[in-house]
């Protein structure tokens, strides 16, 4: 899977999450948008929803079965969810 394709999957999931959020709290579809931590507009529940949505899209669209919820990914240190770019790189390393 190309990184561009992975990024589009992440953006599609971000759009789904945005449908639940107030206008001012919506995630910008940009590579440096924070997904995790104090700078992020996603709370922990939003992050769970995003992760599950991305996993489903990867399975449905590309037949890729990965888990983004293992201990390493969910660790606050060096979390791949820091931003869209780091998550893209992380997924790319798994597929």
């Amino acid at each position: 899977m190309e990184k561009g394709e992975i990024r589009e999957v992440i953006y599609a999931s971000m759009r789904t999450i945005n449908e639940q959020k107030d206008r001012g709290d919506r995630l910008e579809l940009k590579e440096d948008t924070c997904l995790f931590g104090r700078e992020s507009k996603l709370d922990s529940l939003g992050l769970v929803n995003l992760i599950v949505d991305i996993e489903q899209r990867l399975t449905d669209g590309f037949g890729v079965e990965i888990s983004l919820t293992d201990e390493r990914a969910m660790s606050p240190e060096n979390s791949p969810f820091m931003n869209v770019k780091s998550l893209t790189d992380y997924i790319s390393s798994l597929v």
Partner: protein
Amino acid sequence: MAPKDFKCLLVADFTIDGFAGYLKNDEDFPTVESIVAPFDQVVQVLMDGDLECWKSKPDFAVVWTRPESIIRSFNQVLDYEAVPMAQILKEVDEYASLLAMMSGRVKSVLVPTWVSPPYHRGLGMLDLKTGIGVASTLMRMNLRLAENFDESSNIYLLDTQRWVSVAGKHAFNPKLWYMGKVAFGSDVFKEGVRDVKSALSGIVGGSKKLIILDLDDTLWGGVVGDVGWEGIRLGGHDHLGEAYVDFQRALKSLTKRGILLGIVSKNEEAVAIEAITSHPEMVLRLDDFAGWRINWQDKALNIVDLVSELNLGLQSVVFIDDNPVERARVREALSEVFVPEWPEDKMLYRSTLLGLRVFDTPSISEEDAGRTKMYVLERQRSDLKKTVGSLDEWLRSLDTKIQVEELNKANLQRAAQLLNKTNQMNLTTRRMTELEMADWARQDNHKLWTFRVSDNFGDSGLTGIISLEFEGKVGRIVDFVLSCRVMGRKVEETMLYTAIKGAKSQHLDRIYANYIPTFRNKPCLDFWKTSGFSYNGTDSCFSWELCDEYALPDCIKIEGEKEA
């Protein structure tokens, strides 16, 4: 941010924030502000109206629970233990009592039914065995819950299983549950929000009342003007012909729910009418249509004309046409009309129609089932009008009889339906649920009368409401509501006559009415200006001194009242 139309409290035993987000961001009418009750505090929220989440006085509530959480014995069923059904149903009844108790705090309560995830196969091939199966027990529980609210006028069960089916394999995801206590996938929430919005729209009178249809390639295949009625594709041993017949059947079934059908088609009228009356496989005949405009004029103009003839508002209309250009034209010219995207594949017509979410109503009355017939009768009245001389002569020839009743248990449902659906002849456009209406009418200084109208052509049913509130020697007409079906037939004056008579019996000196304008109720103002009540011309207030007589129109007979 624009204020929302209503507030809705979401009570759940799982994380419902995603549902709340979709609900508040849906911009279709009615817009809703979501209030999420504390997580997993269902019983406390239902029992205690003083909790913080009730402070903002929500208009509606959605109470969504998981069966294993709210019905304790169901857990034993999930563990394959034998539990007496009576015990399970007793717990269901107890839960229903809590919902009923809470329902007094809001206009209406929506309760999604209980489901279990499809990966839970229960007892497999034995799962539908009465008394032991998980699926069997769950069905009984849902039915019992529904039966508890058969007589309720403000608690409605919504079919969660349909949402789960639409969402497919992502309806449930154990990860969502373990990591966020989210019981359903986002597609279930989205589908649920659509049904909740549709229900709320129906409850507040926003459901559609009229489907206007094109003919060629919509009701039948082919262009009747080219091939004649013998050559159109309809029925027979033909997959498309069958699809058109099924589509017509689905349309006809909607008329039994009170939805009217109309035709707006570019055709020669005589040719099209001949097809409708002569083709042996037409399901819809002329008497199934409340009216039609079949000519070569612009469809948008024809729709306006037809809707006006039927005394409806454009916001009540669904327009169905196979031609995307005509759809775009109507959408652009008449933004209030709902024009659904329509599939090119004729075999999808029926399913597309049945999937439309614009016809929900909180009740279906006998009047609904006979509504088309009433419009057909109205057409016959109009035909008679053309043959008799003056308006008064025509009105007298109708021999109109009116039955006046105070609000009671038997007429409450229809009266509430009329109050909440009527837009044009509506003085104040006050909306109330059946419970609110009954409570209001019960008060000592309130009076509410209903009017059932019939004439030589048939019974138009309960079509009018007038209500009076009085203090000291002065009364105020609070509601003045009349169905468009009987407008202009002196029922309006009869309603005022009744209110004045009622006011006199309360020894009042004066009654008045304040007209509250909306986008749709100008016909009401027009009537009041000619009603005989005094009007200062500026502040929309009309009044009547009760020392003066208000005559009953001579073309009207009130049943049970002696003639003067």
